[in-house]
């Protein structure tokens, strides 16, 4: 057993590492080749990937479809905006250190309410609660700035050692901030990988596949769902925290329910049955949306058609389709 454990660990780690490490190397090198604009775009993509990664712990691993994850993304974003405006904090580390417990607390509260239901009622409940936050952000304009939103100046990174004030700060900020996002992204991926491969993650998947059987095995189904909700909301909120300095502004748009739809879209685009799906989906969705917005006034139409066609023809998403294709090619080669 003691001898088998490392080798089995190696066996589970080897295939994802074989794909993950070259991709990581590519992500590290890319900003040196592409320009500032493309780097910024990729940073947005990483943020969306983190949001989808958090969301997919519920959809892919727990079997709960939340249509209110805009709430947690917006929660992170507005927490940062309040910290910057009301407390004069401009350090990214403090944003994260304060933002995470706040998000975890709110996720725990809302999650406690939501996990009493499953299936479509869970979806509607998450949507209704997210719209409470949206309507507050919209209407309490003396606190939240209403539809104008709140501006967030460029924060300092690494406990103030990197400062981007003054002219010419913007390209330097984007370059540094990209690597900051990448680091947080990698940490989130590793943490999430450990979670879904832990006994806790296996329990979630058991609940997803057969709730009754999981209950008979002695799993406390609601408690597990609640913890999954808490982690999911917090990771998506972390994406919101990362997003605000990049965007420089947060508006109620990120709390409105169509943004929840975009998170679901990104996840399914990549494929929610695989670990890498939401990561690929988040980055791909960001590119598709950005180029759709840039190329036509009717970008929603384009996105809608892509979404409908995808659900009809490619339900397992990009990652699912690629792995099916790879399996087919392998079989052909063997034949």
């Amino acid at each position, binding site marked *: 057993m003691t001898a088998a454990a490392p080798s089995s660990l190696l066996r589970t780690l080897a295939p994802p590492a074989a794909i993950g490490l070259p991709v990581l190397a590519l992500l590290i090198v890319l900003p040196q080749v592409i320009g500032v604009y493309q780097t910024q775009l990729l940073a947005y993509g990483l943020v969306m990937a983190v949001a989808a990664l958090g969301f997919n712990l519920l959809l892919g691993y727990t079997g709960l479809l939340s249509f209110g994850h805009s709430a947690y993304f917006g929660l992170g974003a507005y927490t940062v905006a309040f910290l910057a405006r009301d407390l004069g904090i401009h350090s990214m580390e403090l944003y994260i250190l304060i933002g995470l417990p706040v998000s975890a607390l709110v996720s725990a509260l809302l999650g406690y309410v939501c996990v009493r239901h499953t299936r479509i009622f869970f979806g509607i409940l998450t949507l209704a609660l997210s719209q*409470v936050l949206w309507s507050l952000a*919209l209407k309490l304009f003396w606190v939240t700035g209403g539809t104008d939103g709140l501006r967030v100046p460029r924060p300092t990174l690494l406990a103030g050692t990197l400062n981007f004030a003054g002219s010419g700060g913007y390209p330097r900020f984007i370059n540094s901030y990209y690597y900051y996002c990448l680091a947080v992204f990698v940490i989130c991926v590793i943490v999430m990988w450990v979670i879904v491969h832990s006994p806790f993650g296996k329990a979630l998947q058991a609940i997803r596949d057969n709730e009754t059987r999981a209950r008979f095995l002695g799993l406390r189904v609601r408690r597990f769902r609640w913890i999954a909700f808490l982690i999911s909301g917090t990771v998506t909120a972390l994406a919101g925290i990362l997003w605000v300095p990049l965007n420089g502004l947060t508006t109620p748009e990120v709390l409105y329910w169509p943004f929840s739809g975009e998170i679901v879209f990104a996840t399914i685009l990549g494929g929610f049955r695989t670990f890498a799906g939401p990561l690929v989906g988040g980055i791909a969705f960001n590119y598709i949306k950005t180029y759709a917005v840039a190329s036509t006034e009717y970008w929603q139409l384009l996105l809608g058609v892509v979404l409908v066609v995808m659900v009809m023809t490619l339900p397992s998403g990009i990652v699912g389709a690629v792995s099916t294709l790879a399996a087919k090619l392998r079989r052909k080669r063997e034949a």
Partner: protein
Amino acid sequence: MAILIIQTLNSLFYASVLFLIAAGLSLIFGVMRIVNLAHGNFYGVGAFVTAWLIGVAIALGVPTPWLFLLLPVGAAAVVLIGIVIEPLLLRPIYRRAEEYQLLVTFGLVLILEDLIKLIWGGLPLTADTLMDALPSIPIGGLIYPGYNLVVIGIGVVAALALWMVIYRTKFGVMLRATSQDRRMASALGLDVGRVYVLAFAIGCFMAGLGGAIIVPSQAAVLGMGIDALVLAFVVVVIGGLGSLKGALVGALIVSFVRTAGVQFFPEIELAVLYLIAAVVLLVKPTGLFGSTA
């Protein structure tokens, strides 16, 4: 006192429109077990088509009383869209998981929203000629637009008609049978596909009519469907998804709370509505009048 009467009438006015949207949403869920996120957009399309038709008719010199006939025509246009969408996009996904169903209808939200922009541009469309055509009614020293009473009347008639169709006609029996047990209904020789198209068409007509009757008093604007959907959700969550009585009571509750909210607590008026919906879901997940899900 006059203020109270006017606020009550205002609530009933909103309740009529909300009921038309929510009843369609509820009917479609009850029969097909699908939550149609694009349902609010059907309401938006109804408003735009009607406003456009009325504008064209005025330009052609059609006398004002005849313009009222265009209201159901606007609703019928939405039915045309519905009977294309149901077999084409929804039928292939009834057997699929809920996430795919929600995503397809979310895709429809994006598509319909931009089609409106593509066809009519981003500017608001008005049809206030109809509003002005009817006299205002004096209520205790204040005046109230007579058109709003017409809308309330249409809401009442629509509720009665829908109730008649569902509980007093042969088609209603088929509808309820399909809703309770699709396979059994099919085995007994019912053409389930046809029932689905018809139910979807009725739902579309109701939403379209909601848009048609609101447009003389409020301009049709982009995003009105997305806003309306969330309110319709609140209505069906309070009343119970799939219940006609629930849609009616839910619409009344939401409208009266909204009117009171605008008067007394405008900042949190929307938040209160969503909180009510969340509380109802917690205490009684099937809503006030819903049966088991």
